[in-house]
């Protein structure tokens, strides 16, 4: 470890870092703008200037940029020397020349890095007497607001958007002081990760549009540590609330999962919390089909009466917490508890779980995915199913560049140099999918194959790696040879597949490739994507023998179910509507717990309003098997209660002995961990409610939370005592200590002088490193522990094996980032970007059917009528349908169906002003 001297004090610092990072890690405040821990240095803003001295005799020194200066043993620096201080102040003054003086109406104000740095350098008076440059703003879509006048030309936005996230439609334009950061013309930002601009830009140029229109300053937001519920990646988030409304979602740093970045589905997809479809009171269906509002006592008694009579079955949900599902499983009994997947998905998720449990390969976390030096993606369009992984893959292809840099002894933070060095050279990334994917631009090759073709390719690669002669001669084997060669050269190869293309054979093939790599002595990684926030946890809870919806339907028809309890699940998304209708109609009592009104709640006899993720606590298991806890950020209104509260209360009323000792949320977690071996680790996901941070709780409100004696003064001037939180270590107050607690309990980041999210480094072991209190979540899958079960011993469930017939098309799911997830698609910003479901056909197939883009086709025998998109990259013989969209429950993945031009189809009018998401074919310009 080199020792450096800063202002006469000697410090030991970590080798290989730059001076700026080292200063921040030491707790010294050095202003900066363009450096970002995830993106390295380019030395553009000149803000991090320090004086470096040649040796002890040198008393003049020279100004160097901290972010561009490696720490070397014996180096002497000064941060506080006049020369450097005046330089830094002058830099801020010059950055502020054109600043529009609009902090009061800026959504960044109060968490603005520019404000912080201005105060830090002590700049106060404007000496410039010239006129300020101004710019016109652009419309950048429904999610992001643009106010170009606030720009300080630090280049973080374009470096993030283009270099890090692979976007192409945001750039630095024009020259000298005309420089402009925007699109070549107005329009929706195309990157699926555009929302991170809000946090990356150190000023108010890019801000969260929904927040701008219902604004609350950061200091007024009540926040809690949370987990994104929009997909299975399990990114950590900080949602903020004021006046009972969710205002925004920010990233919560997790060194092993999302790091600094979220995807737009997660960042902007939580608006459903404020939906006017939210249920507020229990509803009892009357004879005339209308619902009568009940109070919770009444509702609970009715639920209890129904359950007391016996013959209860439960349907859980992969979007509900482990705890709520566990209670429902207790209530209904193990044999009567269906996990709530669609039948096809249940088999796939179970298979994905078993493959990961039994594979010798490591199940990587997202950070580890970034380290892969060769990647094979089989069948999964990760950008649309597990978006954050796609961003990680975009980093993984840069490992080639880092290798080259290491050869020249460049440090990894020397961003510009490394990018110049590598240019377009990337580590291998092979994608086999039914059609194009948004990652194609960084892929070595993307192959369009039908699901069987993908599986066969995987098998061929596995065979190639284990040295056996390729089992499948034919068109794909040439490709397989290339892939084998690339994977064999790699030291950290990664195989990705998932449930997204609906094929068990593909999952199996992916696992075999990973296993073959392991057997040949490489530390291979295997990442299998599952669809929802708790899909994997649900598979762990229910086990492979749990009945599926089809089985419950049969039992219902046989009269074996009187009362059906459905937990946070819209069954019409899970199976064909006729089957679900039958299931619900055959049960005398259908009790549905859910947060928003949907088709299933409308078919219930009793509806209980369930709190959503922002109002309740729960544990979710992400696709890498990480159990993570989310916490309520505000109290649910009216009669909304967390599902676990409803279920526990009901079972207590029934005097069930198995819940006798359960009182708190933590008790359920513990009971579940004790009961279900696969979930034994979940108690370690976060500290229990008795945790105290140096003797006090952790405050949800920042120390400057305002308006407490006026917020509810219109209701009553008698201020009630702050509500005690009896379930978590967090408090609904500003009292307590937000410092150094476990990472799972970080409700907001702030530090004196650092009001923006850049204050995060004060919570990290070193700038950019893991949180001081430890990384949130606990891994339930022990990477590579099982060591070498033969994957082929695990039998994949049979998939619809109807052979290819010329007049039949195979339905393949094509998930979409905006729309395929149920709840996020209801959030106002995203809803604007959701294009109604359609079906993609290859030009040859479209020609055979005589249809063009915009026409309609009838699928099967009246199963659905969908709009056609002709996609030149679509595999002929496959019909890709928008998975997870209204009515797509009727379409069975991989089924072979007839297609026919729809006779009375009305073309949709062309949408204007929304050029994003018009078909996956062009979803990534």
């Amino acid at each position, binding site marked *: 470890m080199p020792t450096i001297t800063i202002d006469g004090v000697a410090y030991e610092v970590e080798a290989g870092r730059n001076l700026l990072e080292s200063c921040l890690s030491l707790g010294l405040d050095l202003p900066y703008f363009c450096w970002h821990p995830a993106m390295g240095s380019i030395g553009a803003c000149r803000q991090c200037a320090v004086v470096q001295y040649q040796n002890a005799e040198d008393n003049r020194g020279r100004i160097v940029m901290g972010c561009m200066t490696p720490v070397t043993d014996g180096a002497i620096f000064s941060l506080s020397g006049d020369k450097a201080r005046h330089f830094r102040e002058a830099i801020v003054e010059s950055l502020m020349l054109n600043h529009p003086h609009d*902090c009061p109406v800026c959504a960044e104000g109060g968490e603005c890095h520019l404000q912080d740095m201005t105060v830090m350098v002590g700049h106060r008076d404007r000496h410039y007497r010239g006129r300020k440059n101004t710019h016109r703003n652009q419309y950048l879509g429904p999610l992001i607001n643009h106010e170009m006048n606030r720009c300080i030309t630090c280049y973080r936005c374009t470096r993030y958007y283009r270099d890090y996230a692979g976007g192409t439609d945001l750039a630095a334009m024009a020259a000298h002081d*005309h420089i402009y950061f925007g699109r070549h013309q107005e329009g929706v930002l195309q990157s699926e990760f555009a929302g991170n601009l809000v946090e990356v830009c150190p000023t108010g140029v890019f801000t969260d549009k929904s927040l701008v229109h219902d*604004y609350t300053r950061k200091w007024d937001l009540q926040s809690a540590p949370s987990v994104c519920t929009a997909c299975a990646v399990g990114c950590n988030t900080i949602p903020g609330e004021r006046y009972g409304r969710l205002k925004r979602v920010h990233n919560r740093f997790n060194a092993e999962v999302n790091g600094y970045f979220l995807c737009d589905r997660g960042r902007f997809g939580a608006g459903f919390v404020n939906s006017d479809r939210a249920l507020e009171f229990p509803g009892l269906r009357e004879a005339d089909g209308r619902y009568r509002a009940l109070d919770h006592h009444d509702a609970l008694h009715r639920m209890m009466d129904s359950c007391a009579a016996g013959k209860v079955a439960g349907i859980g949900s992969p979007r509900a917490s482990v705890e709520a599902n566990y209670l429902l499983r207790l209530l209904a009994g193990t044999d009567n508890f269906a996990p709530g997947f669609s039948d096809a998905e249940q088999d796939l998720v179970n298979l994905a779980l078993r493959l990961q449990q039994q594979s010798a390969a490591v199940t990587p976390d997202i950070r580890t995915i970034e380290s892969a030096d060769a990647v094979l993606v089989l069948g999964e369009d990760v950008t649309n199913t597990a978006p954050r992984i796609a961003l990680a893959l975009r980093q993984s292809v840069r490992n080639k560049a880092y290798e080259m840099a290491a050869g020249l002894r460049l440090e990894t933070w020397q961003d510009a140099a490394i990018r110049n060095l590598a240019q377009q050279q990337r580590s291998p990334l092979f994608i086999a999918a039914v059609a194009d994917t948004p990652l194609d631009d960084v892929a070595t090759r993307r192959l369009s194959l039908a699901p069987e073709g993908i599986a066969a390719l995987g098998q061929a690669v596995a065979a190639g790696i284990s040295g056996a002669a390729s089992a499948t001669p034919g068109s794909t084997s040439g490709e397989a040879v290339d892939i084998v060669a690339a994977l064999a050269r790699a030291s950290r190869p990664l195989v990705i597949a998932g449930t997204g293309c609906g094929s068990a054979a593909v999952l199996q093939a992916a696992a075999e490739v990973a296993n073959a790599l392991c057997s040949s002595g490489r530390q291979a990684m295997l990442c299998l994507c599952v669809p929802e926030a708790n899909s994997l946890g649900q598979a762990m809870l229910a086990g492979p023998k749990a009945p599926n919806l089809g089985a419950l339907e049969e039992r219902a028809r046989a009269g074996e179910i009187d009362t059906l309890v459905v937990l946070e699940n819209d069954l019409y998304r899970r199976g064909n509507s006729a089957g679900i209708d039958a299931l619900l109609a055959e049960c005398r009592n259908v009790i549905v717990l859910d947060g928003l009104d949907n088709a299933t709640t409308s078919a219930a006899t009793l509806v209980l309003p369930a709190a959503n993720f922002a109002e309740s606590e729960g544990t979710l298991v992400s696709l890498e098997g990480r159990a993570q806890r989310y916490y309520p950020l505000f109290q649910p209104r009216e009669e909304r209660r967390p599902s676990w509260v409803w279920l526990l209360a009901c079972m207590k009323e029934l005097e069930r002995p198995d819940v006798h000792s359960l009182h708190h949320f933590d008790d359920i977690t513990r009971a579940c961990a004790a009961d279900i071996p696969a979930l034994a680790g979940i108690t370690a996901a976060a500290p229990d409610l008795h945790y105290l941070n140096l003797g006090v709780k952790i405050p949800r409100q920042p120390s400057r939370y305002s308006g407490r004696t006026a917020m509810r003064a219109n209701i009553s001037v008698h201020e009630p005592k702050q509500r005690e939180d009896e379930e978590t270590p967090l408090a609904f107050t500003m009292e307590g200590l937000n410092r150094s607690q476990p990472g799972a309990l970080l409700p907001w980041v702030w530090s004196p002088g650092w009001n923006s999210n850049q204050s995060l480094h004060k919570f990290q072991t070193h700038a950019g490193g893991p949180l001081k209190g430890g990384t949130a979540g606990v891994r339930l899958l022990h990477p590579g522990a099982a060591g070498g079960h033969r994957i082929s011993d695990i039998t994949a469930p049979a998939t619809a094996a109807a052979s290819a017939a010329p007049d039949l098309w195979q339905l393949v799911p094509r998930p979409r980032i905006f729309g395929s997830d149920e709840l996020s698609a209801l959030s106002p910003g995203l809803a604007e970007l959701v294009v109604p479901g359609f079906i993609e056909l290859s030009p040859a197939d479209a020609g055979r059917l005589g249809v063009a883009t915009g026409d309609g086709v009838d699928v099967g025998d009246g199963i659905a009528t969908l709009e056609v998109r002709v996609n030149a990259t679509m595999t002929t013989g496959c019909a890709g349908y928008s998975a997870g969209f209204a009515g797509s429950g009727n379409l069975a993945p991989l089924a072979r169906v007839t297609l026919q031009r729809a006779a009375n189809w009305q073309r949709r009018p062309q949408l204007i002003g929304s050029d994003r998401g018009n078909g996956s074919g062009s979803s990534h310009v």
Partner: protein
Amino acid sequence: MLKSLTSQLRTIWTILQHSFTKAETVQYPEQMPYLAPRYRGRIVLTNDPDGQERCVACNLCAVACPVDCIALQQGVKEDGRWYPEFFRINFSRCIMCGMCEEACPTNAIQLTPDFEMCEYDRSNMVYEKEHLQIAGTGKYHDYNFYRVSGLAIAGKDKGQAQHEAPPIDVKSLLP
């Protein structure tokens, strides 16, 4: 000894002199005292010189308030202005310290010399925006935030605020 005696005598003399000055105490309420415009009493929200609501709902007054008795919610008007959708001051908590006025970047919130705020029912001390907003500019007649700041609103485009040059044409190569 002599020194302290003189001092005491001088003090007594000064006090005696005061017996002949005019009393400060007035017969309130029959007689109203003069209160300077800077007196810190009942708070109002004012308009800018153009007659538009001055408050931009920036929340600075709320955060400056030591007793946290100001609560508001921002909204955006059709014309692009930020404004408070509601603005509430709980005067039963307010200590008339004037911190909000000092924090306000738009001169919207001002304290006035009216201190007569007595109610039998505390809830009548809770003032909403309609009770706070006055039609005039209050003590500060000229300041108009939107003329200074760069945010474009209807009637004031980019480049039309103080010290602003017309918007740059990004497509032009001219310096």
